[in-house]
């Protein structure tokens, strides 16, 4: 257990202490200390994913350039290049695409529920929540730090994936409104990552257990994603890429804010 000892002797002052500034360096250190296993794993997986995407992406772009530059277009040699691109390279691209699609909920499932639920399970909340900063702000700052970190990482990964995937957009006749492409590009991907994380934090707190929170996060996220794919997107007011992206990111952000508010409300009202 790790605690922050700024004015540790004071009582919980959620109601009155809100005016004092948040000790960011201290909270940064606490968040790192409590979640370092997760943060190190995420960093390692991210580095491996970026290295893999870059290596595979460079090769795929190289192969695609060969296909496009090949003359005469109908010759057996060109057919061979094109066949290789459409089978071996596309297979690889499709698998990478599915993995990236599953990443937000997988990461969030391990990141979100423990933020509050682990403190409840191991009973460390009795100590952590009686620090000077107050239980609500303690939770809010940790959620903000972890949530923004994951969102920024997701944005970077989605940019890289968009570059990686670009050659297949023409060869597989995809558009940027194809559900799988739309999900993993622009603002939509980081917004889904954030919502998955907030969902995890909320459900972990609600069910008061990490494992139960993880299972519930997975289920609810899949339900939400399916509803969006098969129903909600057909009813958006916009029909082109960027307005739709803004709309989707907007409602996901609003949902994330609501889930964080719900988590904080549960934390505030928590009693044994």
């Amino acid at each position, binding site marked *: 257990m790790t605690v922050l000892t700024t004015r540790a002797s004071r009582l919980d002052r959620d109601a009155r202490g809100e005016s004092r500034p948040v000790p960011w360096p201290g909270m940064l250190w606490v968040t790192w200390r409590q979640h370092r*296993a997760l943060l190190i*794993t995420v960093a390692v997986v991210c580095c491996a994913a970026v290295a893999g995407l870059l290596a595979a992406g460079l090769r795929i772009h190289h192969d695609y350039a060969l296909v496009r530059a090949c003359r005469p277009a109908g010759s*057996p040699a060109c*057919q*061979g290049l094109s066949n290789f691109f459409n089978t071996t390279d596309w297979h690889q691209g499709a698998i990478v695409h599915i993995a990236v699609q599953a990443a937000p909920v*997988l990461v969030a499932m*391990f990141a979100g529920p*423990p933020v509050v639920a682990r403190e409840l399970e191991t009973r460390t909340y009795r100590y952590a929540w009686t620090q000077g900063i107050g239980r609500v702000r303690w939770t809010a700052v940790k959620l903000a730090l972890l949530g923004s970190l994951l969102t920024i990482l997701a944005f970077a990964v989605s940019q890289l994936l968009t570059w990686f995937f670009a050659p297949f957009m023409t060869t597989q006749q995809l558009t940027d409104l194809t559900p799988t492409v739309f999900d993993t590009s622009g603002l939509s991907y980081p917004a889904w990552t954030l919502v998955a994380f907030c969902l995890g934090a909320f459900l972990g707190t609600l069910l008061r257990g*990490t*494992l*139960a929170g*993880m*299972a519930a996060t*997975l*289920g609810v996220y*899949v339900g939400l994603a*399916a509803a969006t*794919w*098969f129903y909600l997107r057909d009813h958006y007011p916009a029909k082109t890429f960027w307005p739709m992206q803004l709309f989707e990111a907007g409602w996901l952000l609003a949902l994330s804010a609501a889930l964080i508010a719900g988590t904080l409300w549960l934390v505030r009202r928590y009693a044994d």
Partner: protein
Amino acid sequence: MSVLTLPAQPGQDTAPRPLPWRRMTWVTWRQHRALLISIPAVLAAAAVVLVIFGLKAHHDYAALVNCPLNQGQQSSACGKMFSNFNSNVWPLANALSILVQLAPVLIGAFAGAPLLARELENGTYRFAWTQGLVRERQAIAKLALLGVTLAVLAGAFGWLFSWFFQPFLWTEQINQLSEGMFDASGLVFPAFTLVAFMIGAFLGMLFRRVIPALAATLGAYLALRLGAWALHGQYPVTVVTSNAKLINAYETPGTPGFPWILNSWFTGPGGKPLSSAVTSRLQDLPLGGSLPPGVTEWFKYIPLSRYWPMQFMEAGWLLVLAVGIGAGTVWLVRHRAA
């Protein structure tokens, strides 16, 4: 925490007493009731979705098969029905089938990883494992009881899924042997569930922590599935033929789908291999079209009738693997616990 209170009888433990299955069943239920309630509940909810959606899909498919689609007189009503089936019914079915693929690892990870690791994390193992039942026999009983229960549930669910997926075999040109369908039906689906459960229990015992074990189970299972996919076309059930009719015979609506063609190649007069330039020109001809004289097209394929032999082979080695991992878990309980 729940314990089993057999009276300790010092000095009489030389011969192992038979496992008290009924009491172990009670302990297993008591310790894992949240799991044993939630997994059947989730599967039942998913089954309701499959039944409702499956009835609609079967109904639409029956109408589709009765349409004279392949007779060259494609009526616009038939065409509309067909495109509706492909663009509205199939994507949802495809998404459902991807989720069903994930069911074994999710069941295995959430049931297996906490099985022994939670007792180590909470410290309850100190009490539970010093009961009259020797600790490794308690672990055997739990692994067996939960493993069999989960495998039976998965088997029933896989059976339902294969009924649900029947209409899409012909329309999407897949068959019972292709990965998505083969792995989620018959004996292979429960076998994968059992292996995932054993992997979860083993890694939980190895790491002694639930969450890292859960994460590692997901990774290990993914590696196993990729390995199993690589093996998939390698079972000794393949047939080589030059009779294209065997391949084309399935191109009528309502049949269970195409056979699984692994490979095809051409030979020239006298069985000699052809140059790659000639081969690539021949490959552009339609399947079963007339070939130049002396040239033969060969197919290496797996007929649909090999479904059950392949199921037995794959389920067989998965079962051996599950028992092996289970034995490894029990070994860890015996030597590394406490």
